[in-house]
């Protein structure tokens, strides 16, 4: 009962946060409330018994909050007026538009409640997965077994999606080697305390990421979360000593190579069944396959997020056109 009440309370907070995010015009506050929203969502996932998804949500919220704020600081520090917050006025919606819209939405909601399905839908596939995954794919974590075994085709396309996103960002953002800012990038760079903290914390995060990757097939975690942890190390490094001395081209090349291996490994292990044909369905090969795939996905996510973060932080905007755009946006 207490768990139910806590979940209900969290859901109410979630709705309030979402309303604030939609209707507020102060962009820094929106970013902070976005982080709060993600955190509440992650706790709700934990209540629903999905620790993998909860950890992914928390990690992504940590990453994106830093990401947004750093980009915003970069954006405002290059503009002329400095940090005027986005002051676009809230458009006034007349009542004769608003009232039917509210009535329509509440009508839909009422219909949804009235015709909501009672009981579980067809659960045959779920039951089969949960019954057979240890024999079919191996490992003890059903989530890993599904995304590296039964649904590995989807995983390939997800990996392709990240590669596409990175390539698109690389080719759509203006950037030149000479435009990399040198000197101080954050207020923390001359802080000895920050350097000391980074020296202790970064190996810990690395250890945590390795733990998530290598234990992904027997406990909560997996390649994506481990890669996210690796990428967070780079963000720590950005704040304390800067990341502009790191080779971004090599990271991009390595990401593409890792993607090729991600495609090759399931072809031999799952699609064509070569491994099964020669060695049978042994636990050893299943475990090797799962660990190798988790490690590859982790490396790929780490390199991808690193390239994205680097490019967003180091992005050079074209001088003339963007200034006019700024004026238009401000006025």
């Amino acid at each position, binding site marked *: 009962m207490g768990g139910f009440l806590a979940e209900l309370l969290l859901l109410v907070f979630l709705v309030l946060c979402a309303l604030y995010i939609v209707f507020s015009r102060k962009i820094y506050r929106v970013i902070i409330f976005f982080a709060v929203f993600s955190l509440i969502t992650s706790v709700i996932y934990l209540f629903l018994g999905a620790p993998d998804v909860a950890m992914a949500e928390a990690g992504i919220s940590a990453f994106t909050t830093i990401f947004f704020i750093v980009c915003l600081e970069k954006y405002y520090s290059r503009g002329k007026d*400095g*940090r005027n917050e986005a002051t676009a006025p809230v458009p006034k919606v007349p009542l004769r538009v608003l009232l039917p819209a509210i009535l329509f939405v509440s009508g839909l909601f009422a219909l949804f409640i009235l015709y909501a399905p009672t009981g579980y839908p067809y659960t045959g596939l779920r039951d089969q997965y949960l019954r057979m995954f240890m024999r079919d794919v191996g490992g003890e974590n059903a989530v890993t077994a599904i995304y590296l075994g039964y649904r590995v085709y989807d995983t390939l396309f997800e990996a392709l999606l990240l590669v596409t996103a990175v390539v698109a960002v690389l080719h759509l953002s203006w950037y030149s080697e000479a435009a990399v800012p040198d000197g101080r990038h954050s*207020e923390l760079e001359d802080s000895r305390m920050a350097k000391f*903290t980074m020296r202790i*914390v970064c190996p*810990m995060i690395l250890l945590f990421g390795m733990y998530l990757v290598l234990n992904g097939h027997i406990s909560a975690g997996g390649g994506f979360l481990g890669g996210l942890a690796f990428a967070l190390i780079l963000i720590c490094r950005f704040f304390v000593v800067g990341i502009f001395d790191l080779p971004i081209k090599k990271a991009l090349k390595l990401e593409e190579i890792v993607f090729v291996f991600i495609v090759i490994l399931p072809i031999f292990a799952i699609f064509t069944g070569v491994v099964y044909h020669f060695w049978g369905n042994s636990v050893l090969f299943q475990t090797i396959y799962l660990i190798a795939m988790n490690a590859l996905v982790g490396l790929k996510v780490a390199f991808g997020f690193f390239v994205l973060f680097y490019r967003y932080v180091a992005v050079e905007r074209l001088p003339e056109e963007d200034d006019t755009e700024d004026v238009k946006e401000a006025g």
Partner: protein
Amino acid sequence: MSILAYIVMGIGVAFMLLGVIGIFKPGKDFYYRILVACKIDTVGLLTLGIGLAIYHGISFFTGKMFLIVIMILVLNPFVAHIVARSASRSGYDSIGDSTDVDESAGEK
């Protein structure tokens, strides 16, 4: 062994209670509050973590708990330091003022 663990965890909860009372104490300024909030995070969570480690004895869980305790010990004072430092650097001077951080203080 479990009695010792309960005592340590009780100390942690007591520290957290003091911290919560301190945060919501009226008439205090921002720097006072952040000092107290740092105490909740650091001492309270640290003692709770040590209590949990004692409760579980020597196991894999205790090793993980030990690492988490070290992270708390290193990170939380640093985070409080950063927040107070940013407030000080952006010109927020709130001696004798009990209101929250003024939004326009960071906009200079």
